[in-house]
Structures are given as C-alpha cells and as structure tokens.
C-alpha cells in the first residue's frame, strides 16, 4: 500500500529510473471489466470477459491472432464506437463508474485513457503540432504551458534531445521508432491515468523495439499500462500481469489471468501452458 501512495505523490512528469516501478504486491484495480461481450455485425468476437486491471502495473494481453485482444483494448476507451457494426455488452468500471453509461463523456474518458497503436500514427503535421493539437482541444491553450508540457512529454519518451532543434519539421520524416515514441509522448502529454498499447513494438526494427520496450518499463508505476503483444518474451520481461486469450467456438475468451510469473511458469490451464511453451498458436 505505501508504495502505491508514494507513487501518487510523485511529480507526474518525472519518470524514475527503470527499477522505480512498484512491485505491485498489494494492487488496486483501476479498471474492472465485467462480463464484457463484443460483436461485429452480430458475429461474436469476445465472449463474457471479466478481469481487473491493476493500478500502476503493466498488464499484458496475450494469445493468438483474432482472439479479441485488440477488441478488448479498444473497448476500454470506447474506440469501438468508431467501428461500424460493433456492439458491446457488459460493463467496464473505471473508479466505480461504468464507462458505457449513456451520460459518459467519451472525450474526457479518452483523455484519461491514452492509446498507442501498432503502426506509428503521427499526424501529417509538424512534431510540435502533433503534440499541441490534442492539448488545444482539451483547453490547454497558453503557449508557454503547451510548450512546457510538450517538452516534458518528449523528455519522458527520450525523444527531446533528438528533435528539440526541429520541432517544426514534419513528424512523418522521423524514423519508425521515433514516430512511435512521438505517439507515446502525444498520449502522455494529456496526462492519462491509463495507457493502452496495441502491439506498439511489432512494426519496429529490433533496436527501435528495444528502446520502446525500455520506455514502457519506465512507465510502470506512473501509469497503468495495458499492452497487447505477440512477443511472449517481451510480455514476460515487462508485464506484472498477463491475460491469456484463446478462440474457442467462434469467439475469443479469457482463459487465464494472473501474475505474469504464474502464467508463464505454472499456468493452471493446459491451453495456456501449451501456448506459452510455444506448442500451440
């Protein structure tokens, strides 16, 4: 408990060194997914998923392709609203309130829950504008404030030294790894509580992937991270918790959820054991 409290007191924008994350020994659930089912045009994609996401921890969603991991991720910030034909049943509680309530302010929710996509998605604008666009939208318009927040976010992702002299050049001219870190910075600039990451390293080369992975590790404790990854070794290295999904019947289901170490070393379910040992999937 006291580790969690210490975390809460820290300045929100100075990430500690790599080891600074809490051990998550006594975690609090910040998101509770209750009986969530998800359908695309009536076809079930996820069936009755319930799990808790713990504050300050990294939760990895693993499993074969098409088992609904990304769908679950987009359900958490209601990005599913943008997918035609997608319907969600069940509840997702965030600090006790259901984000699927009618009067939920979706824009505010998405500010609280940042998201990073598989492919880097910098907007075709300057680096500066990539960061300031969403800040402006959320009412932060004072020039110095915007500049300070942008700089801090870029420092947090280790990009500041690489781009501080070309903030007005096109973001699309950055390398893939830099673009992905810019996208993370863009999400961090809004000071979210939770960061959703959909295979953030899979489109990058090994070196850039390593840099981003280190960065994700440093987010631990400051942010609650939910990450979808196909790289089991990566999940094992960075995650505190792991959730294993599998397609049974037509829809994805949650097979097992627990401490990362447990999932990888002593899984309860034989499917999990087979998957993490590379027998299936």
């Amino acid at each position, binding site marked *: 408990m006291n580790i969690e409290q210490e975390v809460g007191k820290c300045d929100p924008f100075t990430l500690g060194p790599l080891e600074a994350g809490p051990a998550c020994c006594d975690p609090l659930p910040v998101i509770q997914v209750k009986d969530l089912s998800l359908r695309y045009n009536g076809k079930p994609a996820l069936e009755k998923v319930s799990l808790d996401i713990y504050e300050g921890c990294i939760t990895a969603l693993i499993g074969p392709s098409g088992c609904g991991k990304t769908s679950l991720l987009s359900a958490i910030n209601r990005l599913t609203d*943008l997918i035609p034909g997608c319907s969600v049943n069940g509840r997702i509680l965030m600090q006790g309130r259901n984000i699927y309530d009618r009067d939920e302010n979706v824009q*505010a929710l998405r500010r609280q829950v940042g998201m990073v996509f598989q492919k880097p998605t910098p*907007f075709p604008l300057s680096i500066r504008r990539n960061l300031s666009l969403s800040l402006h939208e959320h009412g932060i318009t004072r020039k110095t404030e915007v500049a300070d927040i942008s700089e801090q976010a870029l420092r947090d992702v280790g990009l500041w030294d690489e781009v501080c002299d070309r903030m007005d050049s096109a973001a699309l001219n950055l390398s893939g790894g830099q673009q992905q870190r810019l996208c993370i910075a863009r999400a961090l600039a809004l000071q979210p509580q939770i960061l959703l990451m959909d295979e953030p390293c899979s489109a990058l080369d090994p070196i850039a992937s390593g840099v981003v992975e280190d960065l994700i590790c440093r987010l631990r404790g400051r942010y609650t991270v939910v990450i979808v990854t196909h790289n089991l070794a990566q999940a094992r290295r960075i995650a505190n918790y792991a959730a294993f999904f599998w397609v049974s019947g037509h829809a994805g289901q949650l097979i097992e959820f627990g401490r990362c170490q447990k999932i990888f070393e002593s899984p309860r379910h034989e499917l999990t054991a087979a998957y993490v040992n590379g027998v299936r999937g």
Partner: protein
Amino acid sequence: MYDVVRNRGLRKLREYAAQCLIYTAVLLISAVFIWLLIDLLRGGLSHLSWEFITELPRDAGRAGGIASILVSTLLILLVAVLTAVPVAWMTAVLLAEFVATGSWFGKAVRFSLHVLAGVPSIVFGLFGNAFFCVYLELGFSILSGGLTLACMLLPILTSTAEAGLRAVPHVYRLAASALGLSRAAALLHLILPAAAPVMAAGLLLGIGRALAETAALLFTSGYAERMPDSLLDSGRALALHIFDLSMNVPGGDEPAYASALVLVSLLLGINILAMKFAYGLQRSKLMS
C-alpha cells in the same frame, strides 16, 4: 513437325499485323490531334492580341475583343462554384465520415448524385430554363446560368471530395479519437487538410467542366454580348461565344479561332494545375 512450323509462320505474321495496326492507329490519332492543334494555334495566334482580351466586342463579335465575354464567363463560374462547392463538400464529408454505407439516407443521396452525373448537359439546360429562368423568374441571366452549372457540378465535386476524404488513412481518425479530439476538430485539423489536394484537384476539374460547357448555358444565361451590369443581366460565356461566332456570324471565324485558343489555353492551364495537385497527393501518400 510441319504443322508446327507453318503455325509458327502464321503466328509471326499475326504478331506483325497486330503491331502494324496498333502503330497505324496511334499515328493516325496523333496526326489528327496535331492537325487540330496546329489549326487552332495558326488560326488563333494571327488574331490574338492584348486588345482582343481587353476590348469589348463590336459588330456582333467580328471586330473588337472579348472583354465582356470573359467577365460574363467569370461571373457564371463564380456563381456556379460558390453555390456548388459548399453543398458538394458538405455532402462529401457526410458521406465519407458520418453516414454508414447501408443507411437509407446515404443510399438516397448517393443514388441521386449518380443520376445527376448521368444527366446530359442539354437536359441540364432544359431544367435550368424551366426552373431558374421561368419558375423562379430569374430570366435569361448569369444567375440562372451559374445555378444550372452548379447543379451540373454537384456530382463531380462530391465524388472527388469523397474520394479524397476516403484516401485519408483510417488510423488518423482512430488516433485522433484516442486522443480525445472531437470529430469536428479531427476533421478540421487533420482530415480536411490531408484531403485538400484531391479536393482542390476536383474543384479545378469542375471549373474546367463548367468553363467548357455550352449546351447547358444556351437557354439559361443567354446571348447578350454586352458587359453585364448585374447577376440578373444576361451574359454570354466564352464557349457560347465561339458557337455563336461560327454558326450565326458570317465572317466570324477569325475571332472564333482566337476565342477557342483562349478557351483551350485556360482549360489546359486548369488541367495541368489539377494534375499537379493529384500528384502531390500521391507523393504525400508515399511519404507516410
């Protein structure tokens, strides 16, 4: 063996004949086209001068210039573009960003644009005459002509703008939403700027189409060759001027050639500009 050898000979002959025919066709087309261009240039340049652009037509257009014609053309274009663009682009944004492909309203709008795209220009002329000139009592006027052209431009402006919007990668919309941007802000700051080159190309194509149009203006904007005083005045478009000079004015060939040259050069410039915008899009696509 013998059969194979003979067939090979026949095949070679066929191959050769096909090639000859194709090259002949291409040469023929190029020759006719160059003939047309040279005629246009030779006939036009001899009469074209600065005075021709700046002077008012005299003697039914045989003498003088085309200043008033150019002003009328510009006014008709302005009316057409200023009314068609807002409607077309709003429709395009709605179809590309807000309406599910299956919804009845989207289907109905799409269908009506499809119908409009198929209407021949002379029928637009009939409609414009019946609706704008007679029913709305605008008479033969620049306003009637411009509004008729606006109806004609709707489908091309909408379809190009929609294509441009759809070419913007979907991840931009997702990423913008994930950052909590409103759809209006995403549209304004991201999607419309990204689609702007294609929309501009479509706009230029539309202007070109309007500039070349004759049949739809025949009985909507009228024939008057004087300088128009207001939008309710009749005004003669450049294309119509060429038609009138060549059909109704004996001895009007020389100014007609010069007017045709002006019209073709304007259209050429517009088309080149439109293509530049379209290429710009491809390049920016390659970059991302």
